[in-house]
């Protein structure tokens, strides 16, 4: 699905300072993680539609088949449900598959295998079997992706026991979390974001891990906690810049993992700021926004100085057209306004669908 390449290539990000370390692209970081894992463990293999084609899964799998052979890096039939089962069966028998998808939408075809099989086998057979499976997909946004190619489905998985769900926001994390996911003995879903793929970052060479289940503070602040993951953090950081012009000091908490959630980190930050705004790349209702918001009200109630606030996608399918997309997707400005309202007036944004 390279149609959005032009769009993604037109995105502009701040360049990291090479003095701080080796600068690589996001895509390169993912590619390195795969390459290192393949080199390090003969059990690792990479499969997915087009992983060996010239587009190479947005470039993330470039060169891997040449290096590791057709048996370890291979294309699949258009059979998402069976291939999820095949990957699960292989994982149950000593392999460490990384099953890559262009879009999370396609993972919905395999929910039965993912949710009712991969996530449950370890429990159902009393720990006899581990399922070290990685399911990777890149959330689409813009350029007419539309209702069927843009779904950010992480919210559907927040409640599913036995799964882990990870959403990197930087090249460093993309590599470190992917390595952790491959090393993990449980099924781990990684949802990348198409718009981060143009981002460069400081990425160490060699193997390192970013721990699954731990959030990280991206920006310390006093007045409000803005919490989210993946591309939402990018927007939140931009919003924080604007907010500082208004004298508001926002703390940005990058969840990194949305299942299991680092509740301690959320509560700690909330304790400091007293206000929380949850941002997510997925639908506002249910899912990540709801879970984090509910945790705040359940376990951090005493610290709350204002309503819990959230910004996600409105309760509407994604429109394909450009103009409608601009109205649909939250941006830094909308996040900043919501934060401002919350801090200044103790007001959470109204329900988006009735705007």
């Amino acid at each position, binding site marked *: *699905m*390279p*149609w*959005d390449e*032009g*769009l993604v290539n037109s995105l502009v990000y701040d360049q990291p300072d090479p003095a701080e370390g080796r600068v690589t692209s996001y895509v390169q970081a993912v590619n390195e993680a795969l390459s290192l894992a393949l080199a390090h463990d003969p059990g690792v293999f990479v499969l997915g*539609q*087009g992983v*060996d*084609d*010239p*587009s190479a899964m947005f470039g993330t799998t470039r060169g891997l088949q040449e290096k590791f052979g057709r048996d370890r890096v*291979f*294309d*699949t*039939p*258009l*059979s*998402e*449900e*069976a291939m999820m089962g095949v990957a699960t069966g292989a994982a149950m028998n000593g392999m460490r598959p990384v099953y890559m998808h262009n879009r999370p*939408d*396609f993972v919905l*075809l395999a929910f039965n295998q993912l949710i009712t099989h991969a996530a449950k086998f370890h429990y159902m057979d009393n720990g006899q079997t581990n399922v070290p499976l990685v399911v990777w997909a890149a959330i689409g946004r813009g*350029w*007419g*992706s*539309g*209702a*069927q*190619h843009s779904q950010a489905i992480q919210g559907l998985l927040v409640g599913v026991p036995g799964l882990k769900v990870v959403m990197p926001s930087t090249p460093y994390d993309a590599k470190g979390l992917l390595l952790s996911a491959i090393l993990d003995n449980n099924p781990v879903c990684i949802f990348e974001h198409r718009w981060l793929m143009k981002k460069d970052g400081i990425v160490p060479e060699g193997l390192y891990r970013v721990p699954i289940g731990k959030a990280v503070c991206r920006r310390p602040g006093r007045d409000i906690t803005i919490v989210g993951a993946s591309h939402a953090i990018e927007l939140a950081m931009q919003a924080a810049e604007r907010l500082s012009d208004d004298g508001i000091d926002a703390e940005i908490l990058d969840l990194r993992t949305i299942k299991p959630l680092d509740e301690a980190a959320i509560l700690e930050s909330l304790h400091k700021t007293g206000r929380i705004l949850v941002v997510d790349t997925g639908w506002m209702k249910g899912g990540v926004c709801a879970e984090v918001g509910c945790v705040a009200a359940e376990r951090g109630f005493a610290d709350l100085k204002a309503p819990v606030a959230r910004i996600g996608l*409105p*309760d*509407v*399918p994604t*429109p*394909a*057209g*450009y*103009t*409608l997309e601009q*109205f*649909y997707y939250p941006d830094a400005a909308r996040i900043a306004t919501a934060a401002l309202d919350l801090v200044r007036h103790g007001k959470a944004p109204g329900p988006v*669908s*009735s*705007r």
Partner: protein
Amino acid sequence: MTETNIRYRYDGDGVPGFEPFTGRHASAELLDLYRSMLRIRRIEEEIGRRYHEDQMKTPIHLVIGQEATAVGCAGALRLTDLLYSGHRTHGAYLAKGGDLKAMLCEMHCRVNGCVGSRGGSMHLIDKRVGMAGTSAIVGGAVPIATGAALAAQMKGEDRVVVVFLGDATTEEGVTAESLNFAALKKVPVIFFCENNFYSVQSPLATRQPNRDLRNWAAAHEVAAVRVDGTNVLAVHDAVATAVALARSGGGPTFIEAPVYRFRAHGGAGDDSATGYRAEAERDAWESVCPIAQFGDVLGQSGLLDDPAINAMEREISTEIAEAFAFALASPNPTEEDLYQHVYATEAGPTDAVG
């Protein structure tokens, strides 16, 4: 991949293959089929030409090279018959009678697009002409078309449903499930498989063992035929046969039509140079261009000459220019439009009571 070998060969008969079919069609019909293919080709080319201008902010999947399937198929259908398709919609939409202006407005994200800028190129739908639905999910439209056929059967309507699918779509389990159900209930649906040998840039051989798709379809007790997808008349007649079977309650047919797309899977250019397919392969198929071949046939039989072609070209080119101008001048949607049609609010037929 640096090999220049041709992996997937054309194995039809070329121009001689038209022979058995020409006599069965009136001249006007033959010319209509030709014109319809030419028009689609020119529209697609113009879309391809302008795509880099980024006014059409929508993924596109051009049908250049695959015109004979949509046109031949639609020619064998009535306005009230239904057509469903996957992501590669342009040919089906135009052949079934979809409005060009509404299509280009949709692709330019204008509010008067055929689906109000909600769907883009992958969702060219116009129920008034029987272009009934599309899915951007591979295989997504297949059971839906089967359900549409079930509805026609239950309502006793004299309506046939066709669904376009690609070779890769036969790998989705839902397609097999749909064939089984269609055969079980003998619903009036035709599974039209455009086998262009590739799924994006993945060749058939990396996705399926070497097999005959007709056997696969027939194993579900679905009538199964193969037809030269570059031969608009052969396609037309195969569909007509399937339609007759379906209308008479004989149930579904699977039609495999080998074809070739001359451009990249998505976007405007050709991507053969990236090496996933041999340029020689594309060239070989371009030499059996469905439009050129049919033009030759019509020329040989004296139905078409250069002046006639030129007249067609002029007419088409004017239509296209006007349609683009119309689209570019059309209004964008507003924020309010975003929130329309999330839920249907109108009362259903059963709403009168209760």
